[in-house]
């Protein structure tokens, strides 16, 4: 294995893979969302473009690519252009720290299925996904018109206040796994034989609710409420810039679901490890389990969107400050107590 291959080809290959992975997941997600929401509403959804509408996201992206790129005259040019990049960049960068499976032994070389694995990978991913809030704020502010501004202000308050319960519940997982390293957390779940989702169900539920809220989805989609704010913070965006916002939203959903799977449902571990009779499940590679679990949570996102009405702003904030944060705190104390007594 010449250093040229080891130090250049493989890392570049991995980087391309990490960029492609969310893009493909976003394409799948766009198709999945429009089909599933349509079927839930008693209609068919896109099924003319390619087999069963599979090429629909490709058509959307290509069309948006060739659209005229309008920058409103009264907009603040620099901020206006930076915000879609910020939103997209933060989610793609966060994907570098998401491990996709156990390292593979390829001949003599061990291929690690992630780009960077740091002892504080969890914090870095949370921090990076928080950068997207800046993109939304700059975008809403720079468009210099009333509806985007209101959308951006709503998004600021919502995402910041939902970071707190998310952070607290993530702490309980780190507490249980005694480390912040995502790979270590999964290995810890494997060795302890029980997934944290079942060990600490309250943490899972609170984290899931704040994950849905942070990605501005479903009942919490106030920043881009079509019926009130026309199109929320990305009202003034068109063409490829809007495509960034549109895809970044899905990328954040994939990021949040993969986080939930890693932290609470044992990433790439096959289910029912302990049971000897089901040992054949180990034959299936870890990455496949990982994908199945992520798809389940993405389906859950879409299911929630098709059923629930939208929260009003004050009830949204009351939910987090009166219910989620106290619950997360109590849960954190309980976990700490249990750890201390054992």
């Amino acid at each position, binding site marked *: 294995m010449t250093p040229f291959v080891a130090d250049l080809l493989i890392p570049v290959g991995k980087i391309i893979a990490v960029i492609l992975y969310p893009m493909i997941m976003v394409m799948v997600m766009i198709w999945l969302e429009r089909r599933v929401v349509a079927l839930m509403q008693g209609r068919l959804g896109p099924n003319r473009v390619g087999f069963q509408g599979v090429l*629909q996201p490709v058509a959307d992206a290509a069309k948006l690519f060739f659209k005229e790129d309008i920058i409103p005259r009264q907009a603040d040019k620099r901020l206006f252009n930076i915000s879609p990049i910020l939103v997209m960049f933060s989610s793609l960068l966060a994907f570098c720290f998401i491990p996709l499976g156990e390292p593979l032994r390829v001949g003599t070389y061990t291929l690690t299925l992630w780009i960077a694995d740091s002892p504080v990978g969890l914090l870095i991913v949370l921090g990076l996904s928080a950068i997207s809030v800046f993109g939304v704020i700059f975008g809403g502010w720079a468009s210099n018109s009333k509806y985007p501004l209101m959308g951006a202000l709503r998004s600021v308050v919502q995402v910041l206040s939902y970071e707190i319960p998310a952070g607290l519940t993530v702490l309980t997982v780190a507490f249980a796994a005694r480390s912040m390293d995502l790979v270590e957390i999964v290995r810890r779940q494997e060795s302890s034989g029980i997934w944290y989702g079942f060990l600490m169900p309250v943490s899972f539920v609170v984290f899931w609710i704040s994950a849905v809220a942070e990605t501005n989805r479903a009942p919490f989609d106030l920043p881009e409420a079509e019926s009130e704010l026309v199109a929320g913070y990305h009202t003034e965006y068109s063409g490829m810039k809007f495509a960034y916002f549109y895809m970044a939203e899905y990328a954040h959903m994939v990021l949040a679901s993969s986080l939930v799977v890693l932290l609470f449902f044992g990433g790439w571990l096959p289910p029912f490890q302990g049971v000897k009779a089901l040992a054949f499940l180990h034959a299936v590679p870890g990455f496949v389990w990982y994908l199945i679990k992520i798809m389940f949570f993405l389906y859950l996102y879409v299911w929630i969107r098709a059923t629930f009405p939208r929260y009003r702003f004050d009830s949204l904030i009351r939910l987090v400050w009166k219910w989620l944060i106290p619950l997360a705190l109590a849960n954190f104390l309980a976990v700490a107590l249990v750890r201390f007594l054992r």
Partner: protein
Amino acid sequence: MSETFEKAPFLLARADRFITWAQKNSLWPFGSGLACCAIEMIATAAARYDIARFGMELFRASPRQADLFIVAGTVTNKMAPVLRRLWDQMPDPKWSLAMGNCAVCGGPFPTYSVLQGVDKIIPVDVYVAGCPPTPQGLIHGLMILQEKIARSHPTKEILNPDARRPS
């Protein structure tokens, strides 16, 4: 470059086919209904007729992200400047469809406050007659528009901007 374009080398023709295929199959209509035709437009997007099958499901509320302007209903003189502004706010390449007799030619209202036909203020690609046109009629109009897009040559417009359509 434009002379070589006359011979429409293979590359540009293929690019045309791909671009028009993408534009044809992801026409996002602009959700602006004016009168009775708006209800039929929504019925066309609803479960039974479902234009989501052709990829037209996302009724964008903001003109910036829409590429098809369906003028569904009566255009009054008070609404005309608003409609023109909405049309200008839409990014190119954009198409428009005059749905219903009121939008096409003023319909049953030869009165002081109605604009006799929306093509007085915006260029119209497809006229759909009917008062209101049935969802099948509207879908037929949309299919004609898709054929019109398939025949267009976006690369020609990109290469020499002066050949651009009057907007």
